């Protein structure tokens, strides 16, 4: 049985109340997170396909690395 490619996508979401601008998410997932001039994250708003394993791994590192547990990965039905 062939493994079906994963459908759908994901978006990294930040809880702006928990975020204290440590900037770890940007270092861990630069392809998904930009940093504004005060050090807060600007996260890529459009969904990334789940098949993009590198981006998904970066996102997981960012979630794990956040000192304030302010990030989560949200799944979306479509990838773009």
């Amino acid at each position, binding site marked *: 049985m062939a493994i079906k490619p994963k459908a759908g996508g994901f978006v990294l979401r930040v809880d702006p109340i928990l975020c204290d601008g440590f900037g770890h998410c940007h*270092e861990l997932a630069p392809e998904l997170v930009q940093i*504004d001039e*005060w050090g807060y994250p600007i996260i890529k708003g459009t969904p990334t396909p789940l098949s993009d394993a590198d981006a998904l791994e970066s996102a997981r590192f960012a979630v794990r690395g956040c*000192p304030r547990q302010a990030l989560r990965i949200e799944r979306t039905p479509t990838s773009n």
Partner: protein
Amino acid sequence: MIAFTSPYIWYTTRATGFVALILFTLVVALGTFVANRIGGTYVGRFELNELHRSISMVAIVFLMVHILTTLVDSYVPTGWFSAVIPLTSKYEPVHVALGAVAFDLILAVWVSSLLKARIANRSWRFIHWFSWLALASALAHSFLTGTDSRSSWGLALGVVCAAVALASALWRYFARPTRAAGRTALSPLAVAPLDGDARDESARRDPSR
């Protein structure tokens, strides 16, 4: 209790005690680096955080060996519960109690960090403040109980650890960065202009645009 003693167990207790003290001092100093937003140019902020997390695991292993060899060695009657319950040791009750207090606090910090994803971040932070008390208690325990800690090199080591701990505490208190402290520029993408996606996101968040 099983009567079991060997000088090598005692040597292990002394050596791992010193190593654990050095490592926990390093962990606290690195934690202060992370909290004070150090890094972002030559070393990543996340790298300091990862060092903080992984060295704490190594420190806990040394602490466990330190405690186990103390309990197993019947030469000093500490009693099995003296590692967690203060003042239950027949040998130097107060001095061993300081170690027990440090161990209990370290356990609290460790368990809360393991459960970090499941508990409120605010609770985790509150428990994480205990690590300062734990280090202070461990330093006092080391100085008062240690066989070598009042001799030349042992004393020097204790003084260096205490100085690092005090410097970290003062730095943490006076720097007090509660919010963002500027951008981290480690990634080559950091200076790149915002792409379309990022602009979409900021527009989505700010309805006036």
